[in-house]
């Protein structure tokens, strides 16, 4: 089960150096807090979730930068040359790391992340998920989002097209359930999505 999905910026522009921005995030259900005798109030719970997501995003950003550095790839010239350039998701940096219980989630989690140009995509998973499946699903989601939201077109806005993201997630990651979808299933779902959201 996936606990959360998020999209965030990876390399902020010079003016915003050091700021990692979450562009979209989605929790699938909430963490139980059985030891929590008194409810903390809605506002505080919401704040905590937002901070948890941001903590993940920051870690992903550091991991991604460290991996790029280690591979000797400069961070600057990763902007696409033109919108026609295909994005090679296979060559994009990707990785996984573990979050111990209590930091920032109550239960131990695994984060699988993928950095595509200046966007980071990440899945926050339960501790013992099938990572091969999670990695495949994350790549699939990233590809679909890039294609259908046409993120590489300069004027495209991810922020004002939340319904696209939601539409993709409800089909390919329903309620955070990782699905074993073979290529034909993916194509079928994609057709269904394209019919509902003409580009």
């Amino acid at each position: 089960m996936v606990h959360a999905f998020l999209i965030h910026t990876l390399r902020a522009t010079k003016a915003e150096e050091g700021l990692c921005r979450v562009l979209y995030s989605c929790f699938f259900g909430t963490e139980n807090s059985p030891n929590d005798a008194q409810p903390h109030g809605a506002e505080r719970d919401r704040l905590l979730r937002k901070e948890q997501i941001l903590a993940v995003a920051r870690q992903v950003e550091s991991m991604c930068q460290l991996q790029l550095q280690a591979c000797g790839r400069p961070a600057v010239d990763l902007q696409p040359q033109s919108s026609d350039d295909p994005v090679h998701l296979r060559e994009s940096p990707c990785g996984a790391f573990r979050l111990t219980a209590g930091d920032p989630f109550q239960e131990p989690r695994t984060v699988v992340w993928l950095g595509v140009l200046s966007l980071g995509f990440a899945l926050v998973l339960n501790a013992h998920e099938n990572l091969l499946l999670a990695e495949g699903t994350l790549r699939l989601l990233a590809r679909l989002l890039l294609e259908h939201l046409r993120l590489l077109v300069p004027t495209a806005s991810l922020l004002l097209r939340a319904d696209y993201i939601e539409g993709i997630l409800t089909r390919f990651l329903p309620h955070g359930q990782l699905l074993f979808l073979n290529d034909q299933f993916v194509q079928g779902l994609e057709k269904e999505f394209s019919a509902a959201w003409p580009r």
Partner: protein
Amino acid sequence: MFTTGAESLLRQARAGPQPESRPVTAQGGVSGSLVAGLPTPSSLFRELRDEELGRLCARVCALLREEDWGPDAPDALRRLFLIVSATKYNRRLERPCLALLQTTLCSPTCPEQLQLLCAAVLREMSPCDSLSLSCDHIQNTRQLGLVASVLLAQGDQQQVRSLAQRVLKVLESRQPEGPSLRHLLPIVSKVTSLAPDALREEQTRALSKRLGDWLRYASVQQAVAHSSGGFFSTPRARQLGPVTEVDGAVATDFFTVLSTGQRFTEDQWLNVQAFSMLRAWLLDSGPGGSSAPDADDKSELEGSTLSVLSAASTAGHLLPPQQWLREKAFEYCQRLLEQSNRRALKKADSDLQKACLVEAVLVLDVLCQQDPSFLYRTLSCLKPLHTRLRGDPAWVRALLPVAQFFLHHGEAAAVDAEAVYQHLFTRIPAEHFHSPMLAFEFVQFCRDSLPLFGRSLGILRTSFPNLFKFLAWNSPPLTSDFVALLPSLVDAGTAVEMLHLLLDLPCLTAALDLQLRSLQAASERPPWDVSIRAPGCLEALRDSQVQGLFQHLLRAHASGTVERLTPLYRLLQPLAGCARVVQCAEAVPTLLRAFFSAVTQFADGALASQLALLLLERSDSLYQVPGYEAGVHRWVPPGGLRPSCGSMAQPWTGSLTPRALPLTAAVPQLPPTPAQPRHFLGHCTHPSLPTQAPRPRSLPERVSPLLKAQFMRAHPRSSPASSLVGQEVPGGAGTTFTSTWCSGASRHRPALLGPGRGAGVCVGQAQPTGPLAQGAELPVPGPVQAASSTGGRAGEGAAGVRGRPPQRRARAHIRGEAAAAPPQPAPDVRACHRAEVLSPTQVWAIGEYLSVSWDRRCTVEQINNFFEALEALLFEVTQSRPSTTLPKCPPQVITVLMTTLTKLASRSQDLIPRVSLLLSKMRTLAQSAATGSTPGEEGVGAIHTRATELLNLLKMPSVAQFVFTPSVEVSEPRYHRDTNTALPLVLRTVSRLVEREAGLLPG
């Protein structure tokens, strides 16, 4: 209660509306386009005022009230979503707006796009107190899914349970052409993970039965295309052709996730859903799971909702539902194992095959844990599977669950799984260290399986050189995992070798880099830093000696031997600037900390001493990565060599006079002693003084590692073993000045040197064996000899004092390390250079710890012995003539010597006149701008200042004693923080006195 992490997050979040904190977390910071530098609308959304939000809400309400939800509605809702989600603080929506959003979400005719947006806004608002959403009357399963997502986001357990009941009800309704059930299964899966008790026992059993049916009896025919309405709206469409395997062949057996076709039927979708949730379901509903014990109640079977297709099954009907599901799951997994052997036509399917294989093995593992009767059937297919997988590098990640299976069941099945682990730990890290995901999974596997290894733990432990390859290559994500893993990896037998390897970790990174460069074809290379080219390294690798070292560094298992890798450091130097190497170097101090905290749990005195020595001896023989040596030094236990007074020296010197900075620099620049190294050094002192429990640390023991370190630095080529054995030193050869002034000391240990052997330079070098190996007697001369060895070198460097020809001196020196070594000046030069680094530390330690407050055996006589030795040393280093071949004695050594002598004199006051005389001489010497090996102008200044200060202090012997030998408790922080305690006051007073006197006295 919230955990600490959560608390700290919240604290940060509440730290106030700092300009940083709001925008940082607020989402939607930049335009979603990938092109940077566009104006960002985000702040507009984040800082939107309430009245503007009110206007937008009104507009949304107006649009949603329209009958057919005009084209503007999605746009307005998208904006609303962005505004709500773009801040971490709550946005208040008016009640009518909230109510309309919920109504729209539940409206049966509303288009999906709008419903998704309504659900997204409501989810972003949640947890929300004023929500009245209910799923009770929703029939459309897709819509139910959306409502469920909002309800689940509320975090209310009661709501989760009622949702579960509603979903189950729809699921059980079994209308022939009813709603698509595939939207419901993920909700069930989520709900059971959030609230394991949400389903009643009979519901769990019924669903298990149906899951088994969906797994095993999905249609093997493809669905036909429909012109409209989507293929899933009519599940039993006219069928057209059988499904195929991933390699294009017609399916020979039942449908699985690896069966493919043009269109899929509803039950094929359910098959995919069922397999996707299978493992979690088995775990949650099985024995030991949180709900529904595996009741062998066959009567339940009759009441279960059998699918039409399952009627075909025969014997299965007699099984209770849980067992039925396991049986079907087993068949499914077996079929997947068979299907994973096919060559997929598409890359995506080939990836899916691997994921399926992993899942199948994990499910089989669960099945065997829940019902051991599956074990033999499973083993018969897993053994050939392992053989197949180990031959194909593409499937390497599937080997981990197989190994885990053998770990769980190897013993029960009486299978010798050693071969599986051997292969796993020998081949995989060495060949696949550069795959970040595999590295992560492998380390996770080791971590999670630790309790299971049992007698196979030895394989894991001896494989640490291989496991460290993962760490060396992927240090950022793996460091914390290794910190957790280290306590289980290290034992007394491997601690020394592991510490060496930890210190060589950056070098290992560079070696792995080089190995990849040399081995692989360009096309197969994983990405690495191409900006660094090292053609020379590759060529030098052909050298046989280097090859040997290289192979040693890249060994797969602990070898029990230690090699000096210095030639390799030089060879790999071009790679030291690689970001990967630097990253690894940054992780080492953390790992060392974990290592030592693990080692202290079991190390006895001998091992602890060995490790302390090793650290000291390696402290300057590290791979030269920028900042690495400093990083290691900043942490390692030598800090602990100044046990509780650690923080004293620096405030002391600092407050005395800022001009004494060279001296301060010479005193070890270490942070206040961390608790663990101190603990560790507690071990170092081992049972040397069994009768003196209160003060277990004897001085020589504290100092002797330093001596050893110094010896190792000066004699880098000699092995530790040979250096510890008393070497043959003919009496005449080593009789430098040192031997004369050390003679008093050497009287104390005739046994060590034996008759007929003089106290040459090597005397000091041989000495450390005493306190380290036995520590039985009080070997007074330890520090003296340390000093003497320095003095010896410095003395030898000082040509002509004794009229000895330089060659002779060199010989005398070299004989200490290896008789066969040809005379060469290098060691002497190095020794002098090193003196700058080390001698002050060591001399400082003598001054600091040679006191009754540390060891009551520090009698006046002992102090006098030390004093004499150091006095002679100071004399020798300052009186020697300048030489072109040898560097000058650094001023730090001289100032520290003077301070130490003064400290000793303050403890044995008869010595005060002597030291005063000496200090006056030093001042004069400095004034006359020093010939000899005294240093240049800035050094002269420092020496002069220091001598003046010390002289002034000695004029007030009681003050001097207080300052130079403070009571042990001054190391407590309170004495430094609290201005009202005596110490800062006294120091300020003394400092003023000294400064004033210095000002009054003519220079």
